[in-house]
């Protein structure tokens, strides 16, 4: 490789990074701008961040976002872990097509997932309306006839798109595990459930934690799927930001976006550092 070539290489790399990160960099800088402008720098201030804390709409949506992320992560982690164990116990002929089915939602365009979930909920609510009307006519006790999308549907949607990430992160840990460990535990007096708590869980814990962190990250920064499934009564932070931009992109949006960006960045960094450390540990174990 000659010098000229290596210069071009570097230039190309710099350009890639500029295009990737300049917008975010700009956004972060202007979130600290003293003035109202998104183009002219008028000095450093934390005004916009202070304003955020007083904005009830934003605080409410931060609360919604955290609640839906935490709940969906918790539920998806439990469900995904058991699903992964189920996959692990299957014969390969059955497992591989099912794993492909599991992976599709992650590749699938968010908008398709969002719209299809929305359709599902609407269809279900219609059916429910008919069922509830019939049930109420029996006169046992009353069921609500009209259900609408809101926090519940938002939560279900988040659980749905989180589960595959947990499965994907727990599965490899199970496969790395010595397949005789469960037999050994049962040989020494454990029932299957005791073997799960005492032997499988400690072995796959790193995978579960990574899966949960990934799921949480996905939940926090999801916009498209939430938009289609939250209805009008619940609003996540991403949705609120989107709503605010309809009027005008204020530096307040810069500030809240910066906070969201930093949160997700930290979470991703934790996930990656954990994975790198486990990789090293595993190599050490193999040596």
């Amino acid at each position: 490789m000659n010098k000229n070539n290596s210069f071009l290489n570097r230039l190309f790399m710099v350009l890639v990074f500029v295009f990737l990160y300049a917008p975010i960099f700009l956004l972060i800088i202007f979130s600290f701008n003293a003035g109202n402008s998104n183009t002219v720098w008028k000095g450093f201030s934390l005004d916009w961040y202070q304003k955020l804390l007083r904005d009830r709409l934003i605080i409410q949506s931060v609360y919604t976002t955290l609640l839906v992320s935490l709940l969906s992560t918790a539920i998806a982690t439990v469900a995904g872990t058991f699903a992964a164990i189920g996959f692990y116990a299957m014969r390969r002929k059955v497992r591989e097509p099912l794993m492909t089915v599991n992976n599709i939602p992650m590749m699938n365009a968010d908008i398709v997932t969002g719209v299809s979930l929305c359709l599902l909920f609407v269809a279900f609510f219609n059916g429910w309306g008919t069922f509830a009307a019939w049930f109420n006519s029996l006169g046992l006790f009353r069921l609500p006839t009209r259900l609408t999308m809101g926090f519940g549907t938002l939560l279900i949607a988040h659980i749905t798109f989180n589960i595959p990430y947990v499965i994907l992160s727990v599965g490899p840990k199970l496969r790395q595990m010595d397949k005789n460990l469960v037999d050994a535990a049962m040989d020494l007096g454990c029932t299957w459930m005791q073997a799960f708590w005492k032997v499988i869980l400690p072995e796959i814990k790193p995978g579960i934690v990574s899966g949960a962190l990934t799921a949480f990250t996905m939940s926090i920064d999801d916009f498209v799927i939430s938009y289609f499934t939250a209805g009008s009564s619940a609003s996540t932070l991403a949705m609120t930001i989107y709503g605010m931009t309809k009027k005008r992109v204020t530096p307040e949006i810069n500030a809240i976006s910066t906070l969201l960006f930093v949160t997700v960045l930290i979470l991703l960094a934790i996930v990656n550092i954990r994975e790198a450390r486990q990789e090293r540990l595993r190599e050490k174990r193999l040596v």
Partner: protein
Amino acid sequence: MSKELIRLRNLCMVYDDEPVLNDINLYINDKEFLTLLGPSGCGKTTTLRIIGGFATPTSGDVLFDGVRINDVPPYQRQINTVFQKYALFPHLNVYENIAFGLRMQKRPDPSDPTGRKKVKIPEEEIHQRVMEMLEVISLKGFEHRKPDALSGGQQQRVAIARALVNRPKVLLLDEPLGALDLKLRKDMQIELKRIQQQVGITFIYVTHDQEEALTMSDTIVVMDKGSIQQIGTPEDIYNEPKNAFVADFIGESNIIDGIMVRDKLVQMYGRQFPCLDGGFDENEPVDVVIRPEDIDIVPVEQGQLVGTVTNVTFKGMQYDIIVDFRGFKWLIQTTDHSPVGARIGIKIDPDGIHVMKKSKYSGMFGDYSSFSEEYDELDDASLAPDEEESGDEE
């Protein structure tokens, strides 16, 4: 030594429409060291897993002390297992690995007269028993090490201690020495035999290594293709193999087509040889086994047979020479050197000849035409980890 402890009755196992075990019948005595010996895929590990309770036979019964235990889960059997590659719990240290089984146990409370209340084993007793086991396996001072900080041989011994601390009636060992190097394997063979005699319980041992089986066992069960080929003491199996498969699998054998002229007289290559076997029909076609070490080299004029040396390998204690007798190649082990191309005579004493009935294995083994390959294969077999019957693992 003579009390029967385990009996397998008409055991059959089918995996994915593939028969893995065919009508296995076997009894195992108390305090016996029994080895299931055979090549990969012969069904020995499946048999062990059925005894341990990790696999359910398709048909047939497993009896323990006369009681049918087909449906008893592993955690309720008085049987413990040492797994291939040990399966130590990586997140627990040596002490906790060994104590694992004891912590799971509950037994009747001695202070409760009805005997219905169950209590855990007190911590002092656990400590004492774990320490005792560490003594048995000579690993005192290693209690706080994690398994991955131990050598293969040490992990092996921890796995044995983890099983034995529960005082099982039977210990199952699934190729426990497979991952160790040759020197360590030899030491561990002696160590295992010593431990078995010290604790005085039944060992059921699975291996594909015939030398291991001969060294340690009271009884050897030779298996192939899901069926038992022969059951006997190491001496029986070596000296009186039942068919060509057993003769070839245990040690080196020349297996020659012969005709049993009458009792104590067998004919090979058109010549008659006195032997000690009997009980065959007159002029019945048979397989004749001659061990390489039972053949004496003599001058051509005194030989019962005359052949040409085609290959000589120096083995330290002896020479392995390949001799061509009319197109059929024999292996002869001798301390005398004969150069390649030499014409030699051989003499076989009557007790060096073993006659077997014809079987489905006749003609498959015992010819040393492909001498060097056969040796390579044997070396590979002892090194390769046994992946048989592992289901559909990657």
